[in-house]
């Protein structure tokens, strides 16, 4: 594998992202608004519960979790489904298929530049701000390293789920409904909107066996749970790794058969 072939996409992605200065401002402002809503919502929830600790999490814990989940979402969300659907509808996908590179890789690396810029421009500032505001509520140690490993795997899992759903567009030729459904499912079951600790027990068990919690819940719990035993951390990472492999194989296989279907039946 020639890495340069792929890193050139990262480079272009960074330049591309930096072309749109205004969109950053709008995005940051939008997130701020969302976080204000989250703040008051959870403040009300804690006030009505009458106790300081709900489901083992203090108000500060919950807030840190959700702020970081939002930041993580901003840099991990790739709109792959949207992009694929649009390319399929417009027929531009033909041009991408005619590059001497697998479409899965081409699409992934096209986004990689976005990861880098989003990470530096939204996640990192948020993370630093949260650490300062909460006076060191986030433990800074070896967990940061585990967190980074976890995030990389989360990106891979997330991308493969997206790609899997995007492939469905080859058959349906419509995007909107599929995309919305995927987003709702992922955001809810991954613990990006509500911490999984708040889920009822049955749902918790179900979620535990699904790949989604590996996307947001896994990295965040590794980052925030300072007293976690190494064994627990490695179990989480192990589960992520398994999902990485399973989702990659699945999405690859589904894409391959679908593409074959298309080349035989036309599209």
């Amino acid at each position: 594998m020639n890495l340069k072939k792929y890193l050139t996409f990262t480079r272009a992605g960074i330049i591309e992202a930096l072309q749109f200065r205004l969109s950053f401002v709008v995005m940051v402002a939008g997130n701020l608004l969302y976080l204000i809503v989250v703040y008051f919502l959870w403040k009300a929830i804690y006030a009505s519960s009458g106790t300081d600790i709900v489901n083992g999490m203090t108000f500060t814990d919950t807030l840190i979790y959700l702020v970081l989940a939002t930041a993580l979402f901003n840099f991990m969300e790739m709109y792959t489904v949207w992009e694929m659907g649009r390319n399929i509808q417009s027929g531009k996908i033909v041009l991408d298929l005619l590059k001497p590179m697998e479409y899965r890789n081409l699409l992934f690396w096209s986004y990689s530049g976005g990861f880098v810029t989003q990470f530096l421009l939204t996640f990192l500032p948020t993370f630093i701000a949260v650490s300062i505001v909460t006076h060191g509520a986030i433990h800074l140690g070896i967990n940061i390293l585990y967190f980074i490993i976890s995030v990389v795997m989360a990106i891979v899992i997330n991308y493969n789920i997206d790609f899997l759903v995007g492939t469905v567009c080859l058959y349906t030729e419509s995007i909107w409904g599929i995309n919305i459904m995927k987003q709702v499912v992922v955001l809810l079951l991954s613990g990006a909107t509500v911490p999984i600790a708040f889920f009822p027990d049955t749902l918790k068990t179900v979620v535990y066996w699904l790949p989604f919690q590996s996307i947001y819940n896994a990295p965040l719990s590794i980052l925030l749970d300072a007293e976690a035993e190494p064994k627990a951390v490695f179990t989480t990472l192990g589960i992520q790794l398994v999902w990485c492999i399973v989702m990659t194989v699945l999405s690859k296989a589904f894409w391959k058969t679908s593409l074959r279907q298309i080349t035989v039946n036309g599209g």
Partner: protein
Amino acid sequence: MAAIIEIQNVTKEFKTLNRHEGLKGSLKDLFSRDYKIVRAVDNVSMSIEQGEIVGYLGPNGAGKSTTIKMMTGVLEPTSGEILVGGNAPYKNRSKNAQEIGVVFGQRTQLWWALPLIESFRLLKDIYQIPDKDYNEMLELYKSLVDIEPLLHKPVRQMSLGQRTLSDILAAFLHNPKIVFLDEPTIGLDVSMKAKIRTLIHELNRQKNTTVILTTHDMGDVDALCRRIVIIDKGKMLYDNDIEHLKGFFGSYRTLKIRVDGDMNAEAEVIKTEVPDFKVSSDDEWISILVDEDKSKVLDVLGLLQKSHKIRDMQLEEISTEDVIKKIYEEGVQ
């Protein structure tokens, strides 16, 4: 010379759902298994050599794009065999991709938000073009077109003509053996069309690139193609030199005259006088399509002069456009 593209008895069939009309019909379609087979390309064979420019013509929906998609490897033929550079393109799309370049009229493969030079750099890395070849190609481009102002302009700010030009340059960048151009001059002004034709011609000449050109603009065909292939309803109608095509329907010329009096009434009279030939008229001219194998244009003119007062006349050679139109409408006998 060996053929770079070899197509033998290729047929491509699509399975499409029989759609029903109206709300009820649409609901029915959701569960329908009522498919029909559409034959988009029907038993087509051709062989194209390295360095040729082939005009691939046909009315809308004739099967041109389908054939091209099969040659690029996006579609797999239902039956028959396609070899591009000795390989079956659909079996090894990535390898085939290295050898071909494509421009699909309306769509661009360039990076929308980036200056053109960045798109070129990306393509350089994707196709793994050596520095030397890449620089040589850029030098060649600079000698052919005024590319400098385009290089640093984001693609989204370009005019359609500039973008098409850039897309063509991008398709040739990795020096492919074959370039497929699907309606490259669509929607462009006269001077840009001329520029693009010269560019394609020069690149073909200097790099010996095979060019497969589909177009509806006969100007493109006249300027670029020595050989044309015509396809309609999936069937191949014609595959030969362009000169041969003109003689194909006998030696036709169009005689245009302007006469005194009501043109339409005069045209009706002329129709009876020269029953062998097709006569048509508009407000300005009466046109007579003369088959010179039957009688000379001058004889026709002489005949008409006896009964009409001719004020003005023009003689037109039959254009490629007319011939193609005739083939589309009537087929090849």
